[in-house]
């Protein structure tokens, strides 16, 4: 966990980068999430101070937008697309299988913190439905039988 001064410095850097730019709150939050993987409470508090925006307002925003996470994510991010094209091609069954294999519901992280499962509504790869993204890599035309290989990629990376 980063120390108090680290947090302050990091947030300060982001705020400085976006200083003078109107409409910057969401952009700063994106930068923070890119760095930490989520928006930690300590960071939100420092941000509130540095921006002069009430903490409640910051939380209004982070809790509203699906993209921002309030809890640390897993080592590997698994996103199953539930857009209409993917849905029609059986994404719901795919999601159920992924949930079974990982043992979590959507929006949850596995107990060993290895995997975080999310549902996303359309990443725009409808030509290859059903689609899912693991650690930023998109897999298309996914069958339930492919899941072993797709999810194990994360495991292999770890042991290397």
């Amino acid at each position, binding site marked *: 966990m980063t120390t108090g001064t680290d947090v302050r410095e990091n947030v300060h850097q982001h705020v400085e980068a976006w200083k003078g730019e109107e409409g910057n709150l969401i952009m700063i*939050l994106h930068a923070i999430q890119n760095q930490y993987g989520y928006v930690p409470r300590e960071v939100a508090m420092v941000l509130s101070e540095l921006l002069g925006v009430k903490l409640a307002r910051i939380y209004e925003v982070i809790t509203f937008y699906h993209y921002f996470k309030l809890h640390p994510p897993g080592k590997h991010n698994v996103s199953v697309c539930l857009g209409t094209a993917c849905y029609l091609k059986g994404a719901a069954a795919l999601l159920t299988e992924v949930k079974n294999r990982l043992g979590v519901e959507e929006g949850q992280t596995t107990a060993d913190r290895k995997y975080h499962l999310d549902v996303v509504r359309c990443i725009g790869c409808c030509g290859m439905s059903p689609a899912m993204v693991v650690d930023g890599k998109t897999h298309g035309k996914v069958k339930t039988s492919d899941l072993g290989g797709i999810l194990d990629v994360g495991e292999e990376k770890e042991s290397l």
Partner: protein
Amino acid sequence: MRKVSVADLDAAAAKNGTPEAGGWIRVGCDTGGIAAGAGRVYQVLKEEVEKAGLSVRVLRVGALGFSFADPLVEIQVEGMPRILYGQVTEEVARRIVPEHVLGKKLLDGHVVATRQRGQTFNGKTTHVLVKDTSSRTVEKEDLVCSSFVEKLRGAGLDGGVQVVRALDMGIYDRGVVLQALPSAVTYTHVLTQDLTRIKQRTLVDGQVIEDLLWKEKDPQVRIVLRNCGVIDPESLEDCLCHRGYQALKKVLFESTPEKVIDELKTSGLRGRGGAGFPTWLKWKLTRENQADQRYVICNADEGDPGAFMDRSVLESDPHAVLEGIIIAGYAMGASKGYFYIRAEYPLAIERVQKAIDEAREAGLLGNHILGSDFSFEAKVRLGAGAFVCGEETALIASIEGKRGSPSPRPPYPSVRGLWGKPTAINNVETLANVSAILDRGGAWYAQYGTEKSKGTKVFAVTGKVKNAQLVEVPMGVSLREIVFEICGGVLNDRDIKAVQTGGPSGGVIPEDHLDTPVSYESLQELGSIMGSGGMLVMDQNDCMVDVAKFYLKFCVDESCGKCAPCRIGGYQMLQLLDKISRGRGGDEDVFQMRRICQGMQKASLCALGQTAPNPVLSTLRYFEPEYRAYIEGGPSYARKMTKMLAGNSEVVEGGVTL
């Protein structure tokens, strides 16, 4: 890149494309292509070209549109006709330089044939593509096709003409189809007995056989997609050679804001985000409001699940949209513009930012554009996973750093928008049209389309369709033509049940209405909407109650919660629909749902709540028997349906029929 002058613009445009002396290889690198492996294919092709010491230019382009055949590679080299290959894996890519570029031989089974069909011969035929397009299972197709290929080869054509199987002809259900290259003369319903005369008259004598000739023109007109899959989206140079910023030049030096708005009025362009509001009017209203600052926003929050038109345009031709937004700024007196792009589109964000940086460096953005009096600045702002932020006022709130909740209108954004100033918000596709219109004229644009819906529309056709792809057609083309003639019909040759348009705000259109010409009015009459362009094909295995529930759940998840009709109505209606889909609903529940629908339509604060009832109402309108089946069948029927729907993925995987 140094600052560009008007003379530079004209010199580049005069090149009329980028003539590459040694030829070119274009690899489709949009998100869909990259997900299918195009990144690696690009690397491999670069390696191979270098290894062979060739001066062929290998470049990354955007979306070529044929998503069903990703990864796509298009090649133009000396001694060979221009060819598009699909399903190019790394192994296939390795064969391209030795076999196609050097060996002058087409790769069997990978060609996606050109849709521009020749009517006469302009030179000797060098290659023939064959495909059996009849509706039949895959195994049989291979057999019949192979025998044709063998027969043609056996008919003593070796050495002269190469015959290969095509991956896709763009013509469906017309028996065996042959296309002779380079003239692209295409024959359909070819029978074994035709082979002798084809060999003699066409291949030897170079004459067209009238009774076999395919005379239909490709219905697609690519205006928005004009440069997609053609240019390198990360090269301003490429863009300029394809008439990039010509429209802006004309607007700045040969026109006035009023004239620009007039030109748009002539074109008849209506908002392509779904509402279809006349673009010229929106700009006029924004312009008429006096203020010290006005804003233009490009709405790139393409949230409809199943739609990827805007993503494709931003990843493939970002300058067309940037040019559009600058012109918009000029026309309405706005000096600042924002691209509001959803966070789920990282490649689009990257390419748009790059385009902005390049344009600024070249003096096409920023102070005194092209040395004129007009200054305009554009920035990128991200969404964060909220569908409702596609709504104007919610989008504005989002940029302002607030929760994306809509506000009551009036006042409309043209009066009081971003930071209280007059603001115009336009969709990506609308802006891409703007730059084309101001280059070629409003009257040119208005020749396409119907009386009230001018121009073209881009559709992303997906779902249970054979060839999912991006289609751009003039308004007025029928749904049937789009699904069957352009996209090949229903997957596994099943019977079509309905076509869904407009995403979560739209409705289903059943089979007997598929001949309806596409336009804002006609789709509305049928109980749907044009929407942003997502078009889902549904077959007999898709349950309409389930589809309605899917869309309603989406709306409930995405509801901002501000107004009661949507927050409470949506949720309650979902409970009822869920009850029905579990076989525990009754007539009184359907009645109650209809009442909630009415309430939401009349009293919701924004279009999300107002249109959330559409899928429910539309499925009730055309498929009420499916609801009845659940009501009368009870829980046992519901269990059976759930099992069938879960099996949908197996159905697609193994080709098993239920």
